[in-house]
């Protein structure tokens, strides 16, 4: 695909997303606005995972942890009456970055299957922590006391919130694009394709990987802050290990290591889930084998369909 066609495709996609609120209200179908907003929030989370999984080759099976940390940062502040959005979101990003720093510092020392299991186990640890803290609802979770308040932006207005999510998504994709094409991004990608050579030219990948891991965690924490405002409810389920699996599937279905891939993947997976669950309550019995088939036969993802020669 030429850069020009790519720009046209991106512009069209953006227009389509921007057109959702007016079209949904025209047909009086607020459900779709809700659905697309949720998908975009997950697309942000998947885009952050793509940074380390797709470009960095770090198979993190615990990315839902940061959705949870971001969500709890907002929820806990709101619980104690702090509803200023800037404070809340800053804490969501900061806390997720810190958690990612700790988890990353331990797990990046390992690789391969150890890395997969360790990231999974740490997320499970946070999940159990969420369950055992009764103050914040424990197992049942708690209602978000109030949505984040920003000067001049009212998140209670469904379409205002929608456009905010869209803006964050575009910003995250743009910055992600800049990042992976920077020197920093080159080191990350180089370490993925050949660690020995990367070391041989004088770069030690550990710090770069850790930095990427922290950035991915921070962005995912922001997605968590958006998600808790979207659901208006907070439970440890944010950090459920199946969430981490879903995020990985969004990245893979969309096509690894392409900036728009996670967005396509999030749409594909969540729309599929929505369709199947409308059809039968046992939708997972269809989804499971479909996912297995997609791994076996559809390895390059949706972005691969457009990009034949990469």
């Amino acid at each position, binding site marked *: 695909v030429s850069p020009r066609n790519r720009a046209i495709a991106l512009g069209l996609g953006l227009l389509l997303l921007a057109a959702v609120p007016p079209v949904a209200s025209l047909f009086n179908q607020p459900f779709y606005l809700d659905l697309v907003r949720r998908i975009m929030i997950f697309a942000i989370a998947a885009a952050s995972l793509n940074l380390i*999984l797709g470009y960095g080759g770090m*198979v993190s*099976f615990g990315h839902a942890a940061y959705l949870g940390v971001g969500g709890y940062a907002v929820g806990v502040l709101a619980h104690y009456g702090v509803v200023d959005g800037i404070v809340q979101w800053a804490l969501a990003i900061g806390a997720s970055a810190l958690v990612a720093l700790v988890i990353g510092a*331990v*797990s990046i*020392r*390992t690789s*391969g*299957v*150890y890395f*997969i*299991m*360790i990231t*999974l*186990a*740490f997320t*499970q*640890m946070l999940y*159990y*922590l969420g*369950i*055992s*803290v*009764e*103050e914040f609802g424990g197992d049942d979770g708690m209602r978000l006391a109030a949505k984040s308040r920003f000067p001049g932006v009212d998140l209670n207005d469904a379409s205002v919130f929608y456009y905010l999510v869209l803006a964050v998504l575009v910003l995250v994709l743009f910055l992600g694009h800049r990042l992976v094409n920077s020197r920093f991004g080159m080191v990350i990608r180089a370490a993925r394709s050949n660690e020995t050579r990367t070391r041989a030219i004088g770069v030690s990948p550990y710090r770069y990987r850790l930095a990427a891991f922290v950035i991915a965690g921070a962005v995912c924490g922001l997605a968590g802050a958006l998600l808790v405002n979207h659901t208006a409810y907070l439970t440890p389920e944010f950090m459920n*290990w199946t969430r981490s*699996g879903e995020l*990985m*599937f969004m990245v*893979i279905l969309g096509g690894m290591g392409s900036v728009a891939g996670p967005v396509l993947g999030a749409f594909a997976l969540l729309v599929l889930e929505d369709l199947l669950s409308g059809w039968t309550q*046992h*939708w*997972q*019995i269809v*989804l*499971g*084998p*479909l*996912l*297995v088939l997609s*791994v*076996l036969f559809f*390895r390059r993802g949706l972005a691969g369909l457009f990009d034949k020669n990469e």
Partner: protein
Amino acid sequence: MNLILVLEQTLNGLQLGVMLFLMAAGLTLVFGIMNLVNLAHGSFYMVGAYLATYFYQLTGSYWLGVLLGLAGTLVVGVAVELVALRTLYERDHLDQVLATFGLILFFNELAAMVWGRAALYTNIPEYLSGHVELLPGLRYPLYRLVIIVVGLAVAGLLWFVVARTRLGMLIRAGASNRAMVAALGVNIRLLYTLVFGFGAALAGLAGLMAGPIYVVQPGMGELILIEVFVVIVIGGIGSIRGALAGALIVGMVDTLGRAFLKPALATVLSPVAAQAAGPALASMLIYLLMAVVLALKPQGLFPARL
């Protein structure tokens, strides 16, 4: 009195440990030999529990239930290997994780369709229930003792098979050089299928023994699976000795932590703080242990050589 409580909790820890070992042994063998990360291993645990419960209730015979549960899990394991996983041996770990994640969704939903989402409660035959007086004042459930004995016996049997038989020799040879074993005329695919099937049956054994103690419900396998990952990471991936050591350590730390952390904290903190922090810390304990082990020995306590 206090000593008796400690002994009782130690036995509980041992019981959890041998269950974790039964799960970890299959998972670590499959990883060590086929280089396959199988998330769906927890599904075999669930399948074993459901099949045994179902056949017990159908036939009225506990032992027939156990036998059919084991055989059924073996068949399911072999079928999964033949249909889905065989093509994944050559793929990278990411693909294996994703594909087996899909399998988990399938199995959990299948169990929910066949047996419902509600938890099944199952009981044990009369001669296995009741308590035994091990020491004066220490009465311990017979069934849990049976689990410990069975688990340790299987561990011994497994060591014998891997270290002392021709089949075990082939397994070890297949782990170190697949192509060479195949060139010597061994049907390596059949060997893989066998190992996978028996690993599944071991998980099924753990599941069917766990059924009467915990509850039988969809998703039960994943709760234990993640603890088994901790076991394997602590013990060293691909190593059966490591799996045994890791399982016993994790079983003890988890059980003793849940039993004694809160009272222990209460001696240094205020009762209210201990009440809040105790359970939270106890549920995180094995993960913290894992982090410490990794920081000191990134390859685990007993790095693989099988």
